[in-house]
């Protein structure tokens, strides 16, 4: 299975990445390569740098890359603006989706989708064509149309916010989706809906990185690789059984690992 995938070119290559915020080092040499069709899980304690890694890949302005590089489709993207990264197919599903009062969800989704379509040289959609498209995608995450007329994420429950993230992923059809704790705050039904949405959206060309604390999302979406992060580094990589092992041993194991090295 693996040898077959490696015939293609990687979508994302993170090479020995060091990054800091306010001169505080957060990432201390992270390397990670994702090929089309692969699902990677990154696990680790709070504060280990998982979320930071996802934000840096998406281009958050608060972090500085001090060493190493991020390549997307073979190109160095270290200096690209977040919107350029998004347009070219990098998607970040937020752990805490941001509320934007007054901006209608529908308009937000349309502008965003058109920005991506423009990059792909596809025709931009007017409001009526877009409504057709979005209705189709709403099905995937079992969201009601009423969400479209509300302000972006405002007053949404935790689960609704996460479903709205997956809806955006479905519309943007990214080449790589980094989903930061998409499972947190979801009850078991919502988790299944979100997981099945992710599975339907992804295909042999898509790469997915799931950032999570828990095994339960990985029961729904089986990863090809599991990476364990601690103190700004990936300390261990394995198959899906590594997540099971981690669930059993707990994160103390990672602390012990750090002490040993």
């Amino acid at each position: 299975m693996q040898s077959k995938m490696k015939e293609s070119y990687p979508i994302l290559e993170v090479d020995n990445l060091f990054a800091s915020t306010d001169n505080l080092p957060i990432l201390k040499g992270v390397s990670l390569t994702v090929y089309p069709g692969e699902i990677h899980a990154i696990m680790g304690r709070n504060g280990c740098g998982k979320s930071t890694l996802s934000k840096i890949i998406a281009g958050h302005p608060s972090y500085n890359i001090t060493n190493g590089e991020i390549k997307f489709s073979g190109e160095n993207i270290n200096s690209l603006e977040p919107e350029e990264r998004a347009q070219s197919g990098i998607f970040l599903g937020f752990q805490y989706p941001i509320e934007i009062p007054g901006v209608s969800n529908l308009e937000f989704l349309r502008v965003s989708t058109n920005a991506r379509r423009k990059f792909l040289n596809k025709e931009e959609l007017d409001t009526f064509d877009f409504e057709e498209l979005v209705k189709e995608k709403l099905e995937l995450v079992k969201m009601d149309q009423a969400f479209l007329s509300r302000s972006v994420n405002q007053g949404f429950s935790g689960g609704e916010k996460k479903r709205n993230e997956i809806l955006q992923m479905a519309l943007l059809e990214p080449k790589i989706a980094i989903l930061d704790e998409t499972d947190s705050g979801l009850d078991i039904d919502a988790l299944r809906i979100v997981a099945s949405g992710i599975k339907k959206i992804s295909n042999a060309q898509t790469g997915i990185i799931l950032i999570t604390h828990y095994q339960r999302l990985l029961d729904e979406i089986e990863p090809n690789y599991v990476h364990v992060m601690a103190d700004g580094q990936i300390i261990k990589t394995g198959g899906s059984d590594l997540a099971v092992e981690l669930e059993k041993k707990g994160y103390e194991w990672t602390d012990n690992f750090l002490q040993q090295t």
Partner: protein
Amino acid sequence: MGVSFVKVYKDNCNRLFLDNMVKENLVKDVVKEPYKYGFITDIETEKIAKGLNEDIIRLISQKKEEPKYLLDFRLKAFKKWQKMEEPDWAGLGYKKIDYQDIIYYSAPKQKEKISSLDEVDPKLLETFDKLGIPLTEQKKLTNVAVDAVFDSVSIATTFREELAGHGVIFCSISEAVKTHSDLIEKYLGTVVPASDNYFAALNSAVFSDGSFVYIPKGVKCPMDLSSYFRINSGDSGQFERTLIIAEESSSVSYLEGCTAPMFDTNTLHAAVVELIALDDASIKYSTVQNWYAGDEEGVGGIFNFVTKRGKCLGKRSKISWSQVETGSAITWKYPSCLLLGEESVGEFYSVALTNNLQQADTGTKMIHIGPKTKSTIVSKGISAGNSINSYRGLVKMGTKATGSRNYSQCDSMLIGDQASANTFPYIKSQQPNSDIEHEASTCRISEDQLFYLQSRGIEFEEAISMMVSGFCRDVFNQLPMEFAAEADKLLSLKLEGSVG
């Protein structure tokens, strides 16, 4: 029947949806574009000498062939003005105005009497064309009657015959002085007396032109009315005067737009607007103000010192102000309502956007005099650059205003870290049996919000304009649809580079 109802409902929804799209584009354009109305029309003008004295006022009155009562009105106002002091309570910073260095009458030279649009100087028509306000029969806007004012005079008013067929009078105030002198004499200065304030007194003494609207009893004005004010010369002030009278059970929606060329000097604009609504009448007055704001260093721009007031004289009458203020170096205006009639309603919806070194001090006064009167204030101030944006408002409940209610909401949005926003709500109540509610908020566009939108492929500038537009939504929803496209053209101001 069920099916057709659904269709109509759906069409309405679609239309509403589109309406909102157009409105949302308003601010997007504001944010992105430089001032595009800064051109000067090269036209021969008739100007009188600079300076202000009794002779100048007599000359203006004579040029306009005014009756004696009006000359007396002007002279009385001038005497009052001479005794008044220029106010400075708003704490606005500007160079003292030399009132003797202003030309008080400037008009494009044209034939004495113009009987049709064909006789209007093509250069003037071209000017309004360029501003997106075509006046000629072939090109004129279809659902809006327009009165076009150029410097001190009204150039043309469209759809006059159609309106006259409904008994609606829509013309320049100079013409109304001649043709409907009784109405002018009865109402002029009854809402904003000459002695009201320094700039109202000045206007009363020297006002040149403006619009006059009269809606007879029981008539719903069949189309929206609009005045477009254009300042062309750099050394003359603009002192227009608008008077709108809505008789019993009538209604009208009116919009004014304004632009001016870019001069490096400051031009004074001191207008007076008076609205009168009788029993069950309703007036909706919308403004899109886009006077030249000066450059990034604050050089040039219009001083917009305006007195606007409506009198809800009749029972159940209603006056609604909505304004989008984007231009002027300094804006100083408080469109207000005097709520006299029982159960009368006053509304004020405002968006004020300031950038660079602009100063805006705007708000409203809701004076509740009659019983069971109601007022609503929604003010959205957006300040960027080094600008200062203040809401200043008064809500007053008089002794007879039993069972009256006010709701005020004042929100400020700051863009960047150099801009400032202030809110000065004054509340005076002499009537315990009345309710006053005031809500206020200040927000800043957060880095997280910007990053979220950007991470969805939305450009930085677009992200800001989406949020600004979202912030203003409550007010934009109040703008009459017919004007949204026009307002779209009028609005343009650049917030570019004002963040981060």
